[in-house]
């Protein structure tokens, strides 16, 4: 046994040396640099990747639109579960080096990576969604006033509820989702102080299952329905569809409020759509498209680009005919919207 350990040690050492010797000097990006004649852009996804029916898919929609309208090639890259900053740096470096411009990081987790990579590629524009803490000449920070859209959702909920109890379900308890909660709760209270808001988060970070597991959303919604809530707003990505299902099966008079995209119009939720009152949208796809277009036009966006109610970056949808018929509700929402745009109402970002 002794001898074998020794032999093995020598073997490992020589193998390691051989590995280093053969690989000298080449990096993955130095080879890829040549083939960048065609115009291309890239996005790097957040946890969940493409197909999450929510945040990442919205970013992809922006990329797909740019591919079609602007005739450029779109690349995308997915993260691994629980990866470190080093992996994100590697991903962005590879995307930038192979000639993609702009390179967009979807989600605040890309901030440290963009901070390190952006200065190395001064001619490439880097976009980041949901973060304005990293700044630079070639960095565009796309941020949203989620709390404003959620405020309107709160107004609609307070005006619709009969039981004077409404629910909020957050996917994962992060500062971002707390903005949704804060806006919603404020909207409810400003409209009708007697309405009670039940608030619940599905998971705590770094457990991000609260964005991906519909059964969690379903159970939480069931709990809130049992406590007499009749309007439930779920800001929980894919998990929110569970909540929508629970509300829909609870029968007439119970309403869901969707999030991020217009969930009334989503094919995957078609069987529950009658109970989806409205959705508080966050137009990630437009933000992605705008940045790509600005680079294609030769006038790249930079710095903080804030998408609020005034720019229709966030908002409340009116695709459900049942909602449009509630004229008292829509009137209150429109009034609140105008007041936010005029600056008469300031919406809090923390609960």
């Amino acid at each position, binding site marked *: 046994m002794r001898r074998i350990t020794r032999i093995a040690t020598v073997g490992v050492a020589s193998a390691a040396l051989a590995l280093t010797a053969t690989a000298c000097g080449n990096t*993955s990006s130095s080879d890829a640099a040549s083939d960048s004649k065609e115009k291309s852009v890239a996005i790097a996804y957040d946890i969940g990747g493409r197909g999450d029916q929510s945040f990442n898919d919205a970013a992809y929609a922006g990329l797909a639109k740019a591919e079609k309208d602007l005739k450029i090639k779109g690349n*995308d890259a*997915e993260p691994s579960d629980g990866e470190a900053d080093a992996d994100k740096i590697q991903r962005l470096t*590879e995307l930038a080096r192979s000639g993609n411009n702009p390179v967009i990081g979807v989600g605040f987790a890309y901030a440290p990576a963009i901070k390190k990579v952006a200065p190395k590629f001064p001619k490439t524009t880097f976009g980041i969604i949901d973060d*304005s803490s990293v700044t630079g000449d070639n960095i565009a920070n796309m941020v949203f006033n989620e709390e404003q859209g959620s405020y309107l959702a709160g107004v609609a909920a307070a005006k619709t509820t009969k039981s004077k109890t409404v629910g909020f379900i957050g996917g994962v308890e992060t500062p971002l989702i707390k903005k949704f909660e804060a806006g919603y709760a404020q909207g409810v209270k400003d409209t009708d102080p007697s309405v009670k808001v039940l608030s619940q988060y599905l998971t705590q*970070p770094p457990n991000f299952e609260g964005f991906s597991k519909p059964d969690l959303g379903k159970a939480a919604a069931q709990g809130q329905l049992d406590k007499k809530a009749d309007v439930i707003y779920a800001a929980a990505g894919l998990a929110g569809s569970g909540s929508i299902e629970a509300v829909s099966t609870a029968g007439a008079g119970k309403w869901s409020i969707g999030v991020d995209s217009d969930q009334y119009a989503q094919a995957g939720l078609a069987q529950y759509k009658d109970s989806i009152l409205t959705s508080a949208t966050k137009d990630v796809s437009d933000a992605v498209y705008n940045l790509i277009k600005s680079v294609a036009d030769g006038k790249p966006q930079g710095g903080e680009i804030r998408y609020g109610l005034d720019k229709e970056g966030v908002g409340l949808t009116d695709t459900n005919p049942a909602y449009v018929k509630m004229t008292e509700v829509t009137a209150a929402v429109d009034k609140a919207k105008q007041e936010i745009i005029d600056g008469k109402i300031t919406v809090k970002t923390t609960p």
Partner: protein
Amino acid sequence: MKKFDKDRLILGLAGPVLALVVAIVLTTVVLLASGTNPWEPYRIMFESASYVDVQVLIVNQAGTYYLAALAVAVGFRMNLFNIGVDGQYRLAAMMAALVGASVNLPGPFQIALIVLTAMLVGAFWSGIAGILKTTRGVSEVVSTIMLNSIATSLVAWLILPKNFGEQPAGSNNLTTGEIPKSGWFPGLSMGAEAGEIYGFTFVAALCGVIYWFVLGRTRFGFDLRATGASESAAQASGVDAKKMILTSMLISGAVAGLVGMPTLLGDSHTYSLDFPTGLGFTGITIALLGRNHPLGIAFSALLIAFLDKSSASLDQYGYEKEIATIMQGLIVISVVVSYELVRRYGLRRQQQKVGEELAAGGAIKTDADAESTSDKGAAL
């Protein structure tokens, strides 16, 4: 004696090799079944791994995995299944980051303080499971899984801005604040393009040497392995089994506390919501594949890190990078199966040999046989 060593080496290697071959074959079947080119992904992965920057990533990741697997292996040698490495390292990294950010000592002391904090917190968290097991007989499998969830909630609560965390302006992340430069562990630069190998990766290697020495060369290590092999037999020979359970749980947790250190000291310098997760579970895979042997674990850690990092670029070539995840899953299954097969084969072969020798009327090499059976968990 020499011949016997060779047999054991072959048997020891047969398990992992068989597992890898089966895993690769099955992955290829999956690729074929899904209608993609079954060879191209492998080629891309090997090509990607020939670049220095990817190699640096692989080595860094392997260092982290190595620590996680050592933490698990310490338990395994003692017949304890510490599934809680994941929670232990996350809580440890978070507390260490907090301490590191709030104190500013000169270089080495700062690093020593951070590392020590991490080890103590890790040991504390696993110690809870150890005490539950020794005093109440609670299975460590159950208690460590539960402690993982509690650690998640505890970290989430501690990192809230109203407690100890902070939210940088304009960011949607929560961090524990940045550790001052004196607490940054210097790395080995491989060139501006390639990045640097975390200094802590070398500490990880050193931990492997210590592991090998303590378990294989000290009385404590012998007691630990003996208790792992048979608690009652060890007790009969004068080992305090309960003390051994608690001690090995504490050591396992202390090593688990180190898992977050390469990233914390070498790269992120803060604990934030996007700190790497799941390393503890990967550590279990690696410890299994490496048969709890420090060298075996090193190879396994490199292999799993290779699969992780070299598959990252598959996306860009139109292949699913989950291929690597599938392969890792298949490796785990085939490892368990192939080790059992190899063990049975070895046993049968041994019996056959003894039978032949008996039949031939020759002397039985009792000492060699005894050693090989008592030590089957540690073949190689």
